[in-house]
């Protein structure tokens, strides 16, 4: 009996629980509908959004576009520890590839749609550095008549134009997914009961740890490899980072964001259950940040909300020992030092590499 159990523990023979968990990570479903953005799936809006996304004229210095930090060749990240545009921020540039499936946006979830998110950096003095009036002027000057074709005449209300710019950018972002990976092929084979050579033995070992002993799926779950929620990891602090309240501030901000689901520019202001039931005073929001998707993670270094870990090896070493303690709030109580062998840590890193989109 013992021999049988051990034989079943090899990657070729997943347990029922492991199989269920593996299949829950793939495939990536179609993006859900976005009622607050009536043009989310309009091809003309996506084309306009693409032009806006790459428009360096949409900035105070005339040199900054969304693509300055969300670089397509880097899976829409920038490879830097923290974002630098007109100025330098305090957080790492997140990818936009998973945005079509999100609920909360920014590391602290201070926006509740991709279109509200896209409007944020345009107004941030450290990023595009514009006012809503300047956004409106640029649209009228450089994006006509494509803008009118989607939204009608350019509104006199600069906030409305700003929201519409965000909606067009969201439509573009919905055409940019993370892409299918070797892991997805492996999951397809597993679902169909086929032999699979899509993962190496080392990657399969990493997958077993990911869905089992290492507990990665506690937070990195679902086809995006994220629960979309907020957690305090108790990361070592960065010397110049100061204390970042994270979700504790973002949850309050999103409730008063004029571009939120309930706002005047939403196309479905009566259907906002996430805002209705959000508890901004939830104590564990202190210094909590959104779980990032792990798709293409091997290509989006550095890591964590402030980019303080340069490599996936460093990330795994952090979870292995959990050094230090949270300066604000407390570290997520499910976290325990993993204390893995070098071989197992390497297997997990190898598995994460199998989440990269295939060409």
């Amino acid at each position, binding site marked *: 009996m013992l021999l049988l159990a051990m034989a079943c523990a090899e990657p070729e023979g997943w347990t029922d629980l492991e199989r269920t968990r593996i299949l829950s990570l793939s495939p990536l479903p179609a993006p859900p509908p976005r009622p607050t953005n009536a043009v989310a799936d309009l091809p003309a809006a996506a084309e306009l959004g693409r032009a806006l996304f790459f428009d360096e004229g949409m900035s105070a210095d005339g040199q900054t576009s969304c693509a300055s930090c969300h670089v397509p060749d880097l899976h829409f990240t920038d490879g830097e520890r923290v974002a630098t545009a007109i100025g330098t921020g305090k957080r790492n540039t997140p990818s936009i590839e998973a945005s079509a499936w999100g609920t909360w946006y920014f590391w602290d979830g201070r926006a509740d749609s991709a279109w509200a998110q896209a409007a944020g950096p345009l107004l941030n003095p450290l990023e595009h550095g514009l006012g809503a009036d300047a956004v409106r002027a640029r649209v009228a000057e450089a994006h006509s008549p494509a803008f009118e074709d989607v939204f009608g005449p350019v509104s006199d209300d600069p906030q409305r134009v700003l929201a519409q710019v965000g909606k067009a950018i969201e439509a573009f972002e919905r055409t940019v997914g993370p892409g299918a990976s070797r892991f997805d092929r492996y999951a397809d084979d597993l679902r169909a009961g086929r032999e699979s050579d899509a993962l190496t033995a080392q990657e399969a070992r990493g997958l077993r740890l990911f869905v089992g002993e290492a507990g990665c799926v506690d937070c990195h779950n679902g086809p995006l490899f994220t629960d979309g929620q907020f957690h305090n990891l108790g990361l070592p602090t960065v010397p110049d980072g100061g204390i970042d309240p994270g979700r504790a501030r973002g949850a309050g901000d999103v409730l008063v964001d004029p571009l939120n689901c309930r706002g005047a520019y939403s196309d479905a202001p009566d259907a906002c259950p*996430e805002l*209705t*039931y959000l*508890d901004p005073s939830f104590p564990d929001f202190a210094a909590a940040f959104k779980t990032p998707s792990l798709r293409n993670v091997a290509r989006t270094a550095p890591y964590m909300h402030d980019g303080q870990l340069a490599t996936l090896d460093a990330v795994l070493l952090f979870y292995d020992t959990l050094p230090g303690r949270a300066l604000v709030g407390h570290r997520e*109580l499910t976290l325990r030092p993993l204390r893995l062998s070098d071989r197992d840590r390497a297997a997990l890193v190898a598995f994460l590499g199998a989440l990269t989109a295939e060409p």
Partner: protein
Amino acid sequence: MPAAPAPEGVTALGHYRLTWTTEPSPVPLAQLFEIEATLTDARTGAPIEDAEVRIDARMPQHGHGMATKPQDDPGACTGEGQARTCRHPGGRYRTRGMKFHMPGEWTLSFDVSGPAGADRLEAVQRL
């Protein structure tokens, strides 16, 4: 596949019986769901329509509750201010805006304030 029987339990002091269902079912991870509890007299089985039932959930091993503020459906109410009374036809009490944002062991709690006094039911829900 036949649906699993609805979970049920009797409150700590033995006054009330509760059965409940969720929508969606089973409870999804990190998504909003609703819960509908049916409250009956534990001895007679008669539905209780004029109680208050507060439904909440915590993860005792993590020391936290939900990151949402669920809202109890007030039922069918008449009158204003002190004279306001609410009834829950069929003894059915609905709460919206629940969310289990992490997998693991959650404790659902039902705080009942009814004709036999205050009583409480706790039930473990694994996700």
